[in-house]
């Protein structure tokens, strides 16, 4: 399997008043046409890793890497214009909360059409046709109606479907989903994951699924990377999660209250300073 994405020794640093804060400290992985999960707690650098690949790291941050390549393109060397060309077209990103990440003053349909027409030469009518098809593909029952609605007029689950439609319409090869279902109810969460799953398989995309929920990620992805304090502490096959070796991974798995398990008090993470090294 040839890798479409190669990340080697990725570092992201933010200058602050008290010195440099290292958000990502030497992350290395590669991705083919597979589903890769990146799991960690807040501040572990999982989102910054995704953003660095997407090219959405804030201007004032410093990014460095031995290698940051997407299908042979050196992402650290390309111009902003080329980067913009990739973004939304070949690499797309789904964000956590549709309430904040959709444009509130533009109808859902127009936002999807805008994405498509930015990257492909299609007529307005054709773009509309494609957008409606895409809305149907994310299992929105009445695409024509939803096309004309504003983001505040739809539920969270519907908004997230619209965002998936918007991200997939240009046919990206790599999809980065940053906590795509964390703002949703559990039953809606599963619907969204099912849609995402079938589309990723159908279109042969690579997927990076970023989440704090180790259990969810392991049921969805092929491979899981566990991050702690900006570093990868463990990489394992999702099916072998129960054999995780690193105490942090084990701790994350253990500290969730489970139905049917009577554990009082819950085991808590005993954070060891050596994990930071």
């Amino acid at each position, binding site marked *: 399997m040839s890798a479409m994405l190669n990340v080697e020794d990725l570092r992201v640093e933010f200058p602050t008043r008290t010195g440099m804060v290292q958000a990502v400290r030497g992350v290395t992985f590669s991705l083919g046409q597979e589903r890769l999960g990146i799991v960690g707690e807040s501040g572990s650098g999982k989102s910054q890793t995704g953003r660095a690949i997407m090219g959405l790291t804030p201007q004032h941050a410093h990014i460095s890497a031995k290698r940051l390549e997407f299908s042979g393109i050196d992402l650290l060397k390309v111009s902003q214009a080329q980067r913009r060309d990739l973004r939304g077209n070949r690499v797309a990103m789904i964000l956590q909360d549709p309430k904040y990440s959709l444009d509130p003053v533009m109808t859902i349909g127009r936002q999807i059409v805008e994405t498509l027409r930015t990257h492909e030469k299609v007529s307005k009518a054709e773009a509309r046709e494609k957008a409606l098809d895409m809305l149907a593909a994310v299992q929105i029952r009445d695409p024509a109606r939803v096309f004309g609605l504003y983001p505040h007029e739809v539920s969270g689950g519907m908004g997230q479907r619209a965002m998936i439609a918007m991200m997939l319409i240009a046919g990206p090869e790599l999809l980065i989903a940053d906590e795509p279902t964390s703002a949703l109810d559990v039953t809606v969460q*599963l619907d969204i994951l099912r849609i995402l799953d079938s589309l990723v398989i159908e279109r042969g995309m690579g997927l990076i699924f970023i989440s704090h929920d180790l259990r969810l990620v392991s049921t969805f992805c092929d491979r899981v990377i566990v991050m702690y304090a900006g570093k990868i502490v463990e990489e394992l096959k999702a099916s072998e999660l129960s054999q995780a070796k690193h105490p942090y991974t084990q701790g994350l798995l253990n500290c969730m209250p489970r139905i049917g398990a009577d554990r009082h008090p819950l085991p808590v993470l005993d954070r060891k300073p050596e994990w930071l090294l």
Partner: protein
Amino acid sequence: MTVALSIDKLRVVYDEFVALKDVSLAVRQGESFGLVGESGSGKSTLLRAVAGLAPVSAGSIDVNGQRLGKTRDKAFYSQVQMVFQDPYGSLHPRQTVDRLLLEPLAIHGFGDTEKRIQRALDEVGLGSSFRFRYSHQLSGGQRQRVAIARALILEPSILLLDEPTSALDASVQAEVLNLLEQVRRDRKLTFVMVSHDLGVITHMCERLMVMQGGEEVERLEAGDLATRNVARDYTRNLLVASEGFVRGA
């Protein structure tokens, strides 16, 4: 066995929208009762109605045998306190922890503030070094500990918990849940806890009510969920969903 909180046919209406439809409920003293449901199920509305934060249009609420009127007095708040979901939004950004904890004491005319603040911070596992910090200088878990300390400082008998850990990381959630269990045991508190997470609710509560669309779906013992002894499809769906994604399902 005394009833700490009794709710009878409670109805909450916002304009035309009925958020809570005639829900009844009795929570025993020292019990931990859970409310589970998805967004819009009315679980938080129920809690807020008890705290006097939602407009009650019909039905009654009794706390420790006393009928509540339209407004809540000071005596009520010294018996019932609430912890909110978002620790980033529920602490005053320009008050130090010390000031945050002092305010309820001042309002209720407690003396001995120095000692009480010290003790409250110790109880939630924050040392005195946190006392003069602002909330933005604390992590999410630490903020929620402050919110719990603020609720406990008036020595209430009932604690209303509205998704107290859903904004926290799993490992921090475990710490906060353990803390809540600890203070409940130490102070013989009554808990009414709202969560969308069945795992959290079964862990924390003896009995629970599943809600949907402002109505009760069914009432269960915590053990029923483990043994799948549920009557309604809605609850069964929630149970399946809580287990994560299944490919090909």
